[in-house]
């Protein structure tokens, strides 16, 4: 089973939604595993999930900018043609480095901010395409996947956005390289 298969699966989204709900329960509900530590564990998992998502989504696009550029010109044609090659080259690497930052926990808050920003942009792009009836493969994880863009894709992206937002405003979890987020209690 490849990484993309797992990431593309709806199970990951449900896992993210589950973690989000769990975080809400821990944060606002009753304490779990001695309160704060349980919350930190969930936040760590959420951060790693976001990092894995971004890195996994970028891998297929990194090696083939020509293909990605074609996909952008076909499916996301609101991006001006003059910006198309630059977008096709920069966006996958931006995803990759932000994802690695989240996985390693180095500058993770900035990476979480980028994650949220990217998710907002993707959601708007999908919304635009759905509104204009552009029947396209979204190229979210794999550029050649037969999965067509749908309201489900939009809902998934908004779910990811919620996950990223929680990471962004959180105090941080375990296993991060950043000094400010390391466990000190």
């Amino acid at each position, binding site marked *: 089973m490849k990484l993309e298969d797992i990431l593309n699966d709806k199970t990951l989204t449900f896992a993210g939604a589950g973690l989000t709900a769990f975080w809400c329960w821990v944060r606002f509900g009753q304490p779990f595993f001695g309160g704060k530590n349980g919350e930190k564990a969930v936040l760590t998992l959420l951060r790693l999930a976001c990092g894995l998502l971004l890195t996994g989504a970028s891998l297929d696009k990194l090696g083939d*900018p020509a293909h990605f550029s074609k996909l952008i010109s076909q499916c996301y044609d609101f991006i001006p043609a003059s910006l198309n*090659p630059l977008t096709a*080259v920069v966006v996958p690497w931006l995803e990759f480095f*932000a994802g690695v930052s989240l996985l390693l926990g180095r500058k993770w808050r*900035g990476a979480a901010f980028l994650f949220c920003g990217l998710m907002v942009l993707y959601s708007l792009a999908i919304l635009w395409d759905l509104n204009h009836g552009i029947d396209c493969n979204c190229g979210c994880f794999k550029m050649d996947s037969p999965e067509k863009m749908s309201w489900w894709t939009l809902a998934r992206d908004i779910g990811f956005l919620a996950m990223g937002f929680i990471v962004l*405003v959180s105090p941080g979890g375990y296993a991060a390289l950043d000094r400010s987020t390391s466990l000190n209690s």
Partner: protein
Amino acid sequence: METMAIKPSKTELKQVSETPFNFPDRETLRQAWNIFVFSSIFAVLFNAFYSDGIELKFTPPKPFHIMDRLKQDPPAVETSPGWKTPGPKVVHPRPAPTLAADQIPRVSLMGVENRFDKKSCVFLDARKPEEYKEGHIPGALNLFANDLDKNLPLVIPQLPDRGREIIAYCHGGDCDLSLLAAKALRDAGYTKVGIFDGGWPDWKKSGYPIAKGETP
């Protein structure tokens, strides 16, 4: 002990930086900006040395094009189904001669389907031969418009009737290939040359048959 009381200890500093909901703070934005700049520079450098890299061309929009758009031409008139004849031409002073896009009639998808059903015109695929091979409108001839000197003499013998209607297409949208091909054919003496505006993406979406391979 007294110095400890004045100067916050490392743990205290950490606790301050771990306070939740401190967004949007400067540090976050700075980190995000750093990652963005780093990955942009890395991406551009990587692309420059990568064997499958693409050409990064950035063409800023020219100001006089915007001025032209402000002074719009009168709308095109549909004389027969799908065939649009441009309205009366308003002459704008232009700094440089551009492709006479307005003078070549545009054909809508409906018009193209109509002609395809009646077999009343010849289609001309102005895209690259590789893209043509991947799929084209059945019966379409390939004339890659970026290499007209080489390709035009090969196509002209296949179109003996200069009065026959020819519809050129490419990737649709703002692609110039069909325009170049149509202009070249008009200059070669063909009288009824048009452009299928939607191009290949529209045809693919329409559900009409697609031919593959090097032959029409």
